[in-house]
């Protein structure tokens, strides 16, 4: 049947097209399609909003946390300056160095988050 020149449509198939059901109206699937598209459009809008504001929010949060952690050192700065040789000596001790490392690490983390918040969403674009 299919290996020769007999490629004409069988009569029954032609009839199938003539009596084909009306295909234009399917409100349920139309609505499902529209909702699926709109869902993705809103997701896209949210992603863009996050891309635009996220890095700034992260940076502000990072700086706030860092400032809060550094506050004792900042408040103690005048007395540290007044007795700087003692302060210098104490800062060289392991324990003091560790306490100064934490704010620096937080600052570094804030910068890293700012970079990731700006760069990663672009990479994740569909």
């Amino acid at each position: 049947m299919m290996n020769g020149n007999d490629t004409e449509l069988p009569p029954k198939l032609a009839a199938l097209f003539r009596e084909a059901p009306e295909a234009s109206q399917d409100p349920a699937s139309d609505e499902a399609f529209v909702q699926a598209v709109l869902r993705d459009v809103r997701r896209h809008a949210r992603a863009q909003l996050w891309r635009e504001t996220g890095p700034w929010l992260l940076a502000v949060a990072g700086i706030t946390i860092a400032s809060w952690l550094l506050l004792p050192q900042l408040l103690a700065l005048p007395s540290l300056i007044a007795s700087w040789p003692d302060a210098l000596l104490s800062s060289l001790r392991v324990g003091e160095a560790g306490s100064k490392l934490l704010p620096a690490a937080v600052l570094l983390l804030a910068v890293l988050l700012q970079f990731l918040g700006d760069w990663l969403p672009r990479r994740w674009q569909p």
Partner: protein
Amino acid sequence: MKEASDQALVALALAGQTSAFELLVRRHQLAVRRWLRRLGNDAALADDAAQDAFVHAWRQLAAFRGEGSFRSWLYRIAYCQFLQALRSRRSRQALQERLQHEEDGEPLVADCHATPDLERLLAILGLEERACLLLSYGEGYSHAEIGDLLDLPLGTVKSHLRRGVLRIRERFGIEV
């Protein structure tokens, strides 16, 4: 036979059982016609292209290797037939002009105050964007499958989808 898979029906049709192909037509005709109607917003053109697609599928049935689904194979044929029908009727130019007209800021059916419905959504999209969005959101095909089906590179499919979504968002002013 009604419970048989598409692949099994194709095998039966190739063996000479016309009724197996009839069953395939009954199974997929509605989906193909509906997809083409949405694609072109022209019922007559879509139905003609759908019919041509099934005729073509019947004639080329031996070329179906069963690597993908039968419906995907049909959609691919239907899309080619649809494009041919568009060209032969010179409707493509008219459609593109209409779409371009809308893109230039004078929408015929879509405006930012209207609630987006299917017709308004599709009216602002180009032909390939429509095809990609309909297959992705309407039929659930993956980006790679759409690429195979429409014979487009994966990156092009993704950019069509992204551009379509952006255009809908801008035209209808959709915010979070």
